């Protein structure tokens, strides 16, 4: 550790003003602060500089994603073996995990390399510090994609999300939409054949090689949207996550583990998570009350373990940049996400899963919600002040 510190201190002058690599200062700075907590202190005025800077916060979110990631890798292998009928004696957990690991790792690498390359380039051009927002987005993007998505599409969508979703608005912390979801939405509309339908969720399904004849491969939501509610997997399977779906979204258990880490460290907002789940439940109950088709009649709580709802509520809706920031605003924001997600999911057959669209839509509305919350607060206080004056 100390040798590393000494090495960094040694090469530091080259990157400072007048040094050989002056132009790459922000790149150097990014790596230095990634390895060591920056030792800056405030020199004047009353300020608090938290040692938990943005890099540490982002790392915490990445850690909380690990359960979903590991389970996702295993599930990719499991679903593939299940569909090809290879699941039998002698196929161990590790083998399944390794199978998924080989497929998922390239997606993660492509997502990180593309996104970070763009972030570093922009930071150098602007002469700003490299921001670490992409640490999380780069991990979220692979988790919300189907496993067989071509790698160049991952690169294109990541580039689109980082440039159009973030850099255009001024970089990390200035974006209106959640970059990871934007990447997914881009893929969804640009290459629908690779992002939706029944063929994309299990590895090898699109080529059709070795797949058991007549094996469906549809996600539970896909089944439900086609009216085959009776063919949906058991609720327990959906809760554990042994179902087809995007890489990281299937397991509600893994997502909840991540949520615990986020909540314990105070990085994620429990208000948003709670109200999102509440919103989903309420919409489920409303649909139950009408229940004109079997999909509307499934128990409301089951909606919460299906598809990407839990993943979206825990990791996407709580993105501190694109979410509402006022306390009351967070409740409204989360509740509407839950409400809309289930509504889109059940009522619009063109979109089997509504979480992505619901969160993106509410991202756009978040500043408006905040505005009215603050306005009403001001009015309330004004009224109180006038009463006292009178």
């Amino acid at each position, binding site marked *: 550790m100390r040798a590393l510190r000494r090495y960094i201190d040694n090469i530091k002058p080259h990157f400072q003003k007048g040094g050989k690599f002056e132009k790459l200062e922000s790149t150097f700075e990014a790596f230095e602060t990634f390895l060591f907590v920056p030792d800056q202190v405030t020199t004047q005025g009353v300020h608090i500089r938290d040692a938990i800077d943005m890099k540490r916060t982002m790392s915490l979110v990445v850690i909380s994603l690990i359960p979903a990631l590991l389970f996702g890798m295993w599930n990719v292998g499991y679903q593939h073996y299940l569909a090809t009928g290879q699941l039998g004696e002698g196929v161990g957990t590790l083998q399944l995990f390794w199978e998924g690991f080989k497929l998922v790792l390239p997606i993660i690498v492509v997502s990180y390399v593309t996104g970070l390359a763009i972030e570093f380039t922009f930071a150098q051009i602007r002469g700003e510090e490299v921001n670490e927002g992409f640490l999380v987005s780069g991990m979220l993007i692979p988790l919300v994609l189907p496993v067989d998505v071509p790698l*160049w*599409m991952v690169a*294109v969508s990541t580039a689109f999300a980082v440039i*159009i979703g973030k850099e*255009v608005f001024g970089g990390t912390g200035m974006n209106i939409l959640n970059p990871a979801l934007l990447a997914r939405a*881009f893929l969804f*509309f*640009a*290459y629908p*054949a690779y992002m939706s339908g029944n063929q994309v969720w299990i590895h090898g399904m699109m080529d059709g090689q070795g797949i058991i004849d007549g094996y469906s491969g549809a996600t539970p939501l896909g089944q439900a949207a086609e009216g085959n509610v009776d063919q949906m997997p058991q609720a327990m399977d959906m809760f554990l996550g042994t179902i087809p779906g995007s890489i990281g979204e299937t397991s509600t258990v893994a997502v909840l583990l991540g949520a615990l880490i986020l909540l314990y460290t105070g990085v994620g907002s429990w208000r948003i998570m709670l109200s999102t789940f509440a919103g989903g439940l309420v919409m489920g109950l409303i649909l139950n009350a009408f229940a004109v088709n079997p999909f509307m009649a499934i128990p409301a709580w089951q909606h919460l373990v299906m598809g990407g709802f839990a993943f979206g509520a825990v990791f996407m809706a709580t993105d501190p940049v694109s979410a509402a920031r006022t306390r009351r605003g967070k409740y409204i924001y989360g509740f509407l996400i839950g409400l809309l997600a289930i509504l889109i999911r059940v009522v619009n057959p063109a979109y089997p899963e509504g979480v992505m669209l619901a969160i993106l839509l509410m991202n756009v509305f978040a500043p408006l919600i905040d505005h009215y919350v603050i306005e009403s607060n001001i009015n309330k206080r004004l009224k109180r002040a006038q009463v006292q004056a009178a």
Partner: protein
Amino acid sequence: MSQDREPLFSSKNMKLLREPLDDSNPITVQVLGICSALAITVKLEPSVVMALSVVFVMGVSNVVVSLLRTKIPPRIRIIVQLTVIASLVILVDEFLAAFAYEVSKQLSVFVGLIITNCIIMGRLEAFALSNKPWPSFLDGIGNAAGYGLILVIVGFVRELFGSGTIWGYQVVPEPAYSAGYVDNGLFILPPMALVTVGIIIWVQRYRNRKLIEEQQS
């Protein structure tokens, strides 16, 4: 009389023609005529036809209104302008239907909607009503060309990425498709036209610094 007659292509007149191409582009700087830029730019061919139609309508209507400018009673000037534009648009529509039926079908209602293109009314009001025919003509042609330029760029980009063709001819080679390349469906949808226009604005302001608005503090 003869000494204040300025040459036809004086620098002032040329500026009328040149400025809308960049510094005061109707779409990217004045943000007018966006709707048609989104609607008809899926392919290059309709974009070019649309651009030419607008050049014709704007050039002629500017001259006509400029010739009539002392005769039009101010109170009913809008309706007179509309009549002029509408007659010209009907001419264009009929012409397209007769000689370029396929394109005319693709453009469908949007040829008729040239009447409501804010750029045309805007230039009539702002320029032709108070200027002589020749400068008005140049102003009309210039603004329509500025509009058309953006339309053609957007149409080119959207057709290239959305359909893999240019003017209906396939330009993305077949081996690329068999290697796994897929046309980007988002470019067919209107939102991508908006993003493309946004990128054009970005590039334009990067090159032309005086267009960047003052920061509000």
